């Protein structure tokens, strides 16, 4: 550890939009390794469109990176430097030397989506990845999960039971470009379905997670009186969908597509003690008048507010995220970023602006990340699952 601790972290990034999965993997990996100047990478991050032949993509990357630890997933767009790869855009690869860190990952597939299983999986993967990485004064647990596993906060909670507050928790849920059918995780040569992984980043210094969203509350707070799984069934004792439509003056007969087009612009915010809000996006109405949310729902007894935002307000947090993340670490070698797929959808044609502004704010520090279906960032208390946010950690 002491020998590697003296070495600076070196990173290289690559991307490819080739339609040939194998060629795309090789090209992005080759470009990522090149800046390392022959130094051995310790970690490879891969974020890609789900449209690829994933085994061929992974084989292409591994043909270049060999057996170096690899983690990643499919998403809903990638952030590579100032570039934004939208839906179907391609693959981004980040190669990192160990520098002052030690990396280790543990993963599991086919995880049951009930609360107990997710909590247990979070504990088990945090424990085993920490075991493999070894002890250190500080660390970050970078989580990547399937977005279709149910209440992802239960997984975060399981991880937090093992880590406590000195270990940063950050990451994002894999996606499939907003189809919500199947997302995939990568761990070395394996492609995991219904999976989760914990990448343990052992560090001698604290690692700080930053998350911001740019949404503002409107109207009166609402009380969650019934919630099941990832569905808010009732607000204030009435149908959640009815109350939501009432607050926004929406007709009750919107098509699912029309409802989604509006609800993505009006997520719920859970009020926190410091006045901030944790965001939850209502993805669809259910047949019984409930609201299906993305990732996890507020607990019964929780107060929520309908939020509003605009492309400008969402993009407006970008510089603050970067400056706060780099505040303690001006010598950072890379800024890992996790933005929400919903943000990209809201931004529409302006989506590339986010990646460009991230990189402009970060200056010489390369940025790398993907668009998630839930962002993980534990900053206060046990709650660490978010929607519609921009999250970052500097290494």
């Amino acid at each position, binding site marked *: 550890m002491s020998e590697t601790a003296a070495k600076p972290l070196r990173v290289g990034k690559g991307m490819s939009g080739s339609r040939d999965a194998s060629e795309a993997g090789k090209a992005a990996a080759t470009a990522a390794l090149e800046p390392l100047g022959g130094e051995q990478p310790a970690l490879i991050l891969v974020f890609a469109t789900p449209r690829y032949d994933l085994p061929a993509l992974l084989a292409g990357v591994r043909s270049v990176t060999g057996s170096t630890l690899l983690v990643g997933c499919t998403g809903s767009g990638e952030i590579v430097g100032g570039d934004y790869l939208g839906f179907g855009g391609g693959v981004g690869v980040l190669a990192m030397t160990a520098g002052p860190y030690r990396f280790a990952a543990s993963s599991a597939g086919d995880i049951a989506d009930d609360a107990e299983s997710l909590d247990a999986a979070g504990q*088990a993967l945090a424990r*085993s990845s920490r*075991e493999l990485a070894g002890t250190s004064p500080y660390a970050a647990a970078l989580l990547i999960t399937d977005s279709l596993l149910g209440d992802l906060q239960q997984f975060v909670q399981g991880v937090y039971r093992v880590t*406590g*507050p000195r270990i940063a928790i950050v990451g994002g849920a894999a996606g499939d470009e907003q189809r919500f059918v199947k997302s995939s995780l990568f761990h070395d040569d394996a492609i995991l379905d219904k999976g989760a992984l914990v990448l343990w980043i052992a560090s001698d210094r604290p690692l700080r997670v930053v998350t911001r969203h740019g949404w503002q509350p409107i109207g009166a707070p609402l009380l969650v009186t019934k919630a099941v799984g990832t569905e808010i069934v009732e607000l204030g004792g009435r149908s959640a969908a009815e109350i939501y439509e009432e607050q926004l003056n929406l007709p009750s007969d919107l098509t699912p597509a029309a409802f989604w087009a509006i609800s993505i612009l009006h997520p719920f915010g859970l009020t926190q003690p410091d006045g901030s809000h944790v965001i939850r996006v209502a993805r669809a109405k259910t047949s019984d008048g409930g609201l299906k949310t993305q990732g996890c729902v507020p607990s019964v007894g929780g107060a929520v507010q309908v939020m509003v935002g605009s492309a400008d307000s969402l993009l407006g947090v970008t510089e603050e995220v970067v400056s706060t993340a780099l505040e303690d670490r001006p010598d950072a070698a890379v800024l890992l970023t996790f933005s929400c797929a919903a943000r990209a959808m809201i931004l529409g044609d302006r989506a590339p602006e986010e990646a460009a502004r991230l990189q402009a704010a970060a200056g010489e520090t390369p940025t790398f990340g993907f668009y998630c279906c839930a962002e993980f960032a534990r900053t206060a208390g046990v709650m660490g699952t978010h929607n519609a946010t921009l999250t970052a950690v500097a290494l």
Partner: protein
Amino acid sequence: MPDPAALEEYRTAIRDTTRLSRLLAILNDPAPVVVVVDRVVIALSEMFAADVVALLQPNGQGELTTIGSIGLPEELKGARFSGEAGGCAAAAIQSRVPVLVEHAIGEAGMDPILTELEVETAAWLPVLGSREVLGVLVLGRGQPLGFSRSDTDMMMTMLHRIGLVLERARAEAERAHLESRLRQAEKAESLGRMAAAIAHQLNNKLTAVMGFLELAHGEIAAGRDPSTDVEDAQEAARDASRVGLQMLTYLGQGLRGREPLDLAAECREWIPQLSGGLRKDIRIRSELPENAPLITGSPADIRELLAHLITNAEESMSAGGEILIVVREAVAAEIEQSSLVHSAWTPGDGRYLCMAVSDSGSGMDAEVLRNAFDPFFTTKFTGRGLGLAVVLGVVRAHDGTLTVSSTPGVGSVFSVLFPLARA
């Protein structure tokens, strides 16, 4: 447009009401105390953005033990909070009112556990029973955001209810004590089962020996060569001897010659040979450092230990998968007491060399894990059930220890820790 002040007042009222209703719903749940306490601490952590929440109970020795917590990392789960006079917990117990601490880092009386977790603000709240203070609820934040009076007023409202939970906890602890005694009785039964299994194994082998010798006797009487029957008898006798040797190993009395040993080098030598016999759908990967510190050990025993752990991992992965073997340095502080296989072991101050064997197999539930290292316990159709018992014996004979973490459906990690050789 509603009046902003009125709206804020309404928001606060709604928030407090919902906090109370949520906590009441949890506290009224007839679930086991451990579940209720877990839900309470998680709810409080969410509601008050508290990084650490712990419900503590005095243990009669000037300390407080944790009944339930969130935010205490695993290595601190068994740690005891200070109940000494002058400390925050003692002040809350004596005064029977909340003790609030801001800028807690470096503050006199702050518990070392919270200091280690870099807690900036903390609230210590006495849990009042009908006659006495039953415990303390502590909430800590890592950011300089103090708990408000309305926060603590609300929490105090709930503390009587939490007191009832603590009284239930006491009753359940008493029951747990009785169950522990029952488990001891079950262990005695397990010993009986083990004795019967040894007798059965040896009897089988000796019956075979006697049978072959009788056949040999017949061959001699008939003037024929008895060599084949004598060799079969010898093989059966050797088999019986192996059972005995493995039992001695389990008991830590079968240690072969010890010498300074490079564990990573031993793994490098043996893993390729041992992986040759694995199924084709099993991959084996290793992370073995160069120039790792030496341990004192028996190469033959280490090889046997490695073989049993690999076999165990392979058998747990019926659908194939990967076995990962990592050798690295470790310190006593990171050894999780809750995962120790033999809980009587206490860590010294020294450093260790850890060999972790992980698999992505079926994992073990608590029941299987409790018995996994008992001799002759097996969940498989074949085998004597001595593999993990031998592993434990080898570890004990090397003055080491063994931790296991396992989750059904996810896999298991067996970590063997050997003390480093003395320089």
